């Protein structure tokens, strides 16, 4: 920062302060879009929805009526679908996130090996990520339908064929398959991480006669653990907000609109009723806006709790080289 003159004349000090003020003004100016957005897109709605969660509010036909903890009490004691949606959501997070990380590491590992054709393989693994979620869901609705290609393939190999999205036991595994199809973006991050592991570590291990598994367990894993941690946190945060695929597939498999039939969200038998889907139904189909707001805050608390647990536990298993964070 240059030499520091310990003796600052008043003029110098005033100039310093003026410069600092100008700097803060510039910062304010540059950050103004985000600051304004933060206030009207985050701060106000957060407080408003917290307020709504203690009211009964059905949109524009009426104004919010304070009901205290009624919404929360109803949620925990009188709403079995709240619990079912929560169970489904936890299931998909616990199953989906680790599988995604595993497959991401695995496919990245495969990509580090070949000398030729690597860019083709990388392309092949990554292109599905580019497919929009709605298109991918519709594609899988077709692929996994009881007379679709997967069914034909399974029949060819004489493997028992589940009914996938028509069977409550198999609808979530079908969704997991759909999610794993898009593992490409996770894979790329792991690929970069794997390639960043310093080679001298492996060479040293080779000299000591380590086998492949030992090298993986004691060198590779710790070195990529920050990326695993990052993927886990992102996976949990977005996993709890799982919506699009479940919505498209439930509507598609359940027949969507029909005479006198409500939406088929959660089809079949509520197995695809995830937390955000139930929230959407309560908030924007039945217009229980107060109840939906309460559900949103409960979701927030749960996600924060899980993230904190992950962060706390990261001290134990995440290894940062060089001490940077």
């Amino acid at each position, binding site marked *: 920062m240059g030499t520091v003159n310990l003796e600052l004349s008043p003029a110098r000090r005033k100039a310093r302060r003026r410069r600092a003020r100008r700097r803060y003004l510039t910062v304010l100016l540059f950050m103004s879009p985000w600051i304004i957005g933060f206030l009207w897109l985050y701060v106000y709605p957060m407080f408003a929805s917290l307020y709504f969660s203690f009211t009964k509010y059905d949109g524009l036909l009426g104004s919010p009526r304070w009901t205290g903890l009624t919404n929360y009490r109803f949620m925990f004691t009188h709403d079995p679908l709240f619990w079912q949606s929560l169970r489904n959501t936890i299931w998909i997070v616990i199953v989906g996130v680790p599988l995604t990380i595993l497959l991401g590491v695995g496919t990245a590992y495969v990509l580090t090996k070949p000398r030729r054709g690597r860019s083709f393989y990388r392309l092949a693994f990554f292109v599905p990520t580019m497919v929009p979620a709605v298109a991918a869901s519709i594609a899988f609705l077709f692929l996994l339908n009881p007379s679709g290609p997967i069914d034909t393939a399974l029949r060819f190999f004489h493997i028992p064929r589940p009914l996938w999205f028509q069977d409550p036991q198999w609808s979530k595994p079908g969704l997991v398959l759909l999610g794993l199809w898009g593992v490409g973006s996770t894979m790329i991050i792991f690929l970069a991480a794997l390639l960043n592991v310093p080679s001298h570590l492996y060479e040293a291990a080779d000299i000591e006669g380590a086998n492949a598994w030992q090298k993986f367990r004691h060198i590779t894993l710790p070195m990529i653990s920050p990326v695993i941690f990052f993927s886990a946190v992102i996976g949990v945060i977005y996993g709890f907000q799982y919506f699009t695929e479940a919505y498209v597939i439930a509507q598609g498999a359940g027949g969507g609109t029909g005479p006198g039939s409500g939406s088929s969200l959660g089809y079949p038998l509520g197995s695809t009723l995830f937390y955000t889907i139930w929230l959407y139904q309560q908030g924007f189909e039945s217009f229980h806006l107060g109840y*939906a707001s309460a559900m949103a805050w409960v979701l927030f608390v749960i996600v924060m709790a899980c993230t904190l647990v992950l962060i706390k536990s990261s001290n134990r298993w995440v290894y940062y080289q060089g001490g940077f964070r």
Partner: protein
Amino acid sequence: MGLLPGGVPVSGATVSAPIVRTRRRSAEARRKDLLSSVATHSVAIGLSAMFLLPLVFVVLTSLMTQHQSLTSDLIPHPIQWSNYRDIFNEQPMLLYGKNTVIYSVLATVGVVLSSVPVAYALGVIEWRGQRAAFLLVIATMMLPTQVTVVPLYLIFVKLHWIDSLKPLIIPAFFGDAFSIFLLRQFFRTIPGELVDAARVDGANELQIMWHVVVKTAKPAIVAVALFQFLYCWNDFFLPLLYTVNNPRIWTLSVGLQQFTGAHRGVLWNLQMAASVLFMLPVIILFLLAQKAFIEGITLTGVKG
């Protein structure tokens, strides 16, 4: 087998041999190399097939007659190219495409325009509280959309923005946390001397931002734009919520999903054709800009 960059396998056998490198590898080592190469490529090909087959089936089915698409046949016979024309009569694909393009392009412009200055302030200008502010920006990424969605919906109703694309486009002009994060990380890799030199020359922050940082950070800005475009193209939940009552303003995501629900008596062949048309632009965009995409993703995950 080692993981040296470049993928040269190092077997245990050669390490215990004399340190002096022999020019010719033993026949045994060469055979081992060949086997491992075959194994690697087999696995890679197998995985590639699993990832690509769904797309292959989608394309094949998009060329089937409706009757055949309901059967378990895999190959279309006859090949009905007219599906790609008929889908435009079944659904206003061009209208949905236009809406999607409008949304994606405008939102991308908004995000880039608003996120660059914010990232600059958080990454280049030194000020007290910079780190705290940055953490706050990141924290907004952790907030579930559901927490803000009900009041936001009501705001947009009062503004009469519902059933237009405004609720999707206008918030993009107020910065996007993910883009700010990406850009800020990149800006910080710009050598401080460049910025300091410009400051010494008397340039104000705006000039520095434009002439020094933006020019150097073009790849990152392109990556941010690509990501935002892709995100908008794929977006479903918010477009569904804000525009579902007005079919004239549906994006491709919403239009296609409504088509799936409304078309009782599933028209698989046309649906697959519509899906292909929907995914084609972004896949092509990706193929043309592969490097930018992949570099961008790497930027997020690796630089903690």
